[in-house]
């Protein structure tokens, strides 16, 4: 602990156990959502725009897409955090990089969900 440069916060935002647990819970949830979409999308064939809108706005698919986006990005953010922590030293910009990565994922998520809202209404 004493080896960390003064003024650099090395503490993670949540405890390691909670991080570990949520990574696995989100993995299981994502597995279900992914299994559904890989199967359904493989059956789709080529879609025109009207068919794509019909696919996205079907309630089961809308629910699935929201789950896929939210859980997928959550799982990705937990994973990226661990990868960055392992390869980027604290004094080489670890925390800014983690925040940047999470901000990017948040933007992707908001854009995805907003697109779903626009498509539905």
């Amino acid at each position: 602990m004493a080896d960390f440069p003064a003024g650099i916060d090395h503490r993670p935002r949540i405890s390691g156990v909670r991080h570990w647990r949520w990574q696995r819970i989100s993995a299981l949830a994502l597995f279900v959502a992914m299994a559904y979409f890989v199967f359904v999308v493989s059956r789709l064939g080529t879609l025109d725009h009207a068919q794509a809108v019909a696919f996205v706005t079907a309630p089961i698919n809308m629910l699935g897409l929201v789950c896929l986006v939210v859980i997928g990005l959550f799982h990705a953010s937990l994973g990226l955090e661990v990868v960055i922590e392992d390869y980027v030293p604290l004094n080489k910009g670890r925390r800014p990089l983690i925040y940047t990565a999470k901000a990017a994922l948040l933007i992707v998520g908001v854009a995805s969900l907003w697109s779903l809202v626009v498509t539905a209404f």
Partner: protein
Amino acid sequence: MAKARPMSPHLQVYRPQLTSILSITHRASGVVLTTGTLVLALWLIAVASGPETFAIMAAIVGHPLGQFVLFGYSVALFYHACNGIRHLSWDLGFGLTIPDVYRSGYVVLGATCGLTALLWLSVWF
């Protein structure tokens, strides 16, 4: 100065093995799949934007190069999912001996190839 914590193996002098290759591939496929969320977002944006934008997106996705990228994403997805199950079984305490770890490693590789082949055969035929 005392070492604060143990260090990871020095990869330059660490002989690659099935175990280490599959481990780093799990991470790499996870990072690749993270970029896939951007592709999904772009597709959803295209659907929301209307027929013209969607036609551009459909052309990109339908192009052989786009299909090749999608193929890559499918390999990453199946590998990450199968190896994820392997990780979850370790978390439950199963298959932790070295022979078991190698066996499950080969099973994951086989399952990844099999599922990828199944998916694309079902898409194309």
